[in-house]
């Protein structure tokens, strides 16, 4: 039976066929598009990376951030200063205390108050403990991305000691909310310093253990050496900071380079750099950093001054009008707050510079031409926290 086909239907059919053909040609010419994430076990959260593949090789990659955007910069405008510390805890949730410190320092700079020395030392100790807790997880997690399950269990086991310390001092395992303008909430409980000295031994032991587990391992070496190389000038162009920059040979550490109220200048520590700039170098630099942090905490515990932990501040905190920028060397890199105050209870505007956001911006450059399994290794070695990208 003949079917009556109108001209309109016929032209629609031809157009559809042509569109199909175009798609096929496109697929053949430019390869396949693959979404890594937003829900993927190898990304630590909801980062989506769109990669275009030619066989096993990546032609083009693009990170899509924003799946976990919580609007903290906007939220700070409608919260008071004491309320904001509890918000910024949740930016980099593995080293929470480190997020509070630059914000509080910026507010103190505007108010022109200075915390007493004991408070600064306690801040510095907790800051470094936060760094240890954060980086220990990376040291184990890198193994998981390569298929080695044991290191991550060791990492969780030994991170627990550090988290217990933070909890017994501040009351919160992950979100301390311990820093106040002009000082701290409370002093350490009795016996905390001795306990910490014991835990630092375990942390150093963990570093030795993970070194025997992974560093000499043939699989680990071959999957990280020479993979994802970032030359120093590219690292500079993309604004990389922290261990990612230091692994490319850039000798940059704000703890040493910037004057800070926190007593890093009174400690003796080495800033490790690595000339290679590959995944292995980034792992190695972080491993050394944990050791250096343990060294810093030990020195600080030896020389902690006694005295008050809170300077005199008004009960209702109003910050005078002005602008302040404070940045510190956080576990993931350079973190800073640009606080603009108009004299109210909360900031007028607060710009949060997070390290992961800049560190992830290099992925389109870095992932071009690598193979699919290496995408996971490179992402793991860049070490970002999703809350830190999206905040």
């Amino acid at each position, binding site marked *: 039976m003949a079917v009556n086909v109108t001209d309109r239907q016929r032209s629609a059919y031809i157009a559809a066929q042509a569109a199909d053909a175009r798609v096929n040609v496109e697929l053949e010419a430019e390869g396949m598009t693959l979404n890594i994430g937003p829900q993927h076990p190898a990304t630590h959260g909801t980062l989506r990376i769109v990669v275009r593949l030619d066989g096993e090789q990546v032609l083009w990659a693009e990170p899509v951030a924003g799946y976990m955007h919580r609007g903290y910069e906007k939220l700070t405008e409608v919260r008071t200063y004491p309320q904001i510390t*509890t918000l910024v805890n949740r930016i980099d949730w593995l080293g929470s205390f480190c997020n509070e410190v630059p914000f509080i320092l910026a507010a103190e700079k505007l108010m022109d108050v200075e915390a007493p020395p004991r408070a600064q030392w306690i801040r510095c100790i907790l800051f470094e403990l936060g760094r240890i807790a954060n980086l220990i997880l990376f040291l184990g997690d890198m193994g998981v991305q390569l298929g080695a399950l044991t290191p991550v269990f060791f990492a969780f086991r030994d991170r627990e000691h550090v988290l217990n310390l933070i909890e017994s001092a501040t009351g919160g395992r992950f979100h301390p*909310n311990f820093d106040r303008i002009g000082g701290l909430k409370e002093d350490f409980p*009795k*016996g905390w310093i001795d306990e910490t000295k014991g835990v630092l031994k375990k942390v150093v032991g963990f570093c030795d253990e993970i070194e025997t587990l*992974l560093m000499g391992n043939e699989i680990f070496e071959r999957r990280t050496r020479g993979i994802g190389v970032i030359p120093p000038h590219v690292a500079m162009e993309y604004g990389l900071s922290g261990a990612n920059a230091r692994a490319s040979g850039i000798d940059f550490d704000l703890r040493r380079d910037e004057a800070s109220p926190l007593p890093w200048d009174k400690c003796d520590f080495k800033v490790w750099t690595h000339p290679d700039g590959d995944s292995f170098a980034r792992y190695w630099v972080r491993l050394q950093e944990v050791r250096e942090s343990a060294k810093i905490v030990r020195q600080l515990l030896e020389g902690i001054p006694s005295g008050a932990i809170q300077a005199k501040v008004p009960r209702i905190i109003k910050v005078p009008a002005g602008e302040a920028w404070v940045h510190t060397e956080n576990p993931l890199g350079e973190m800073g707050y640009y606080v603009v105050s108009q004299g109210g209870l909360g900031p007028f505007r607060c710009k949060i510079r997070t390290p992961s956001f800049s560190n992830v911006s290099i992925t389109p450059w870095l992932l071009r031409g690598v193979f699919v399994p290496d995408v996971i290794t490179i992402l793991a070695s860049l070490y970002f926290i999703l809350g830190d990208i999206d905040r």
Partner: protein
Amino acid sequence: MAPKLPGLVKGLGVTLRTMMKPAVTVQYTGPHGKEREDPPARARGVIALKEENCTVCMLCARQCPDWCIYIEGHKDKAPPRREGGKPRSIQYLDRFDIDYGLCMYCGICVEVCPFDALFWSPEFEYSEPRIADLLHDKTRLGEWMEGVPEPQALEVGALAKKGGKK
């Protein structure tokens, strides 16, 4: 000079050594009954309310970053302190609810309370199958007072708190 061990064997040696050590984890619930690790005294587990200290000043409800505290009260006459005096007018607490489904555990309410009516307790076992049951009313919050620890001693070199026990 020891011969160079392949990395895999060296790594497996670490695994074997750790296998011989006792487990560090605790069997929370299960066939061996119930074990639990007690959190430190400062842990922010649950907020306890000492009802007689509350004066319905609403400071905690106003300072709460996510407004999870609901307070209602009324003013009423109370008997005079001295015989023959004027009857006083004081605030009575009718409702004090904390919604733990919203609470961020920041502790601002405990800190701002000027009359020491709110305390942290390290108790943590209050999960509920229904999210609406996480709203604790004032009797439930009062029951948490049992778990509130005594003020702790501070580390050497700390300044003693004013009026606090050493």
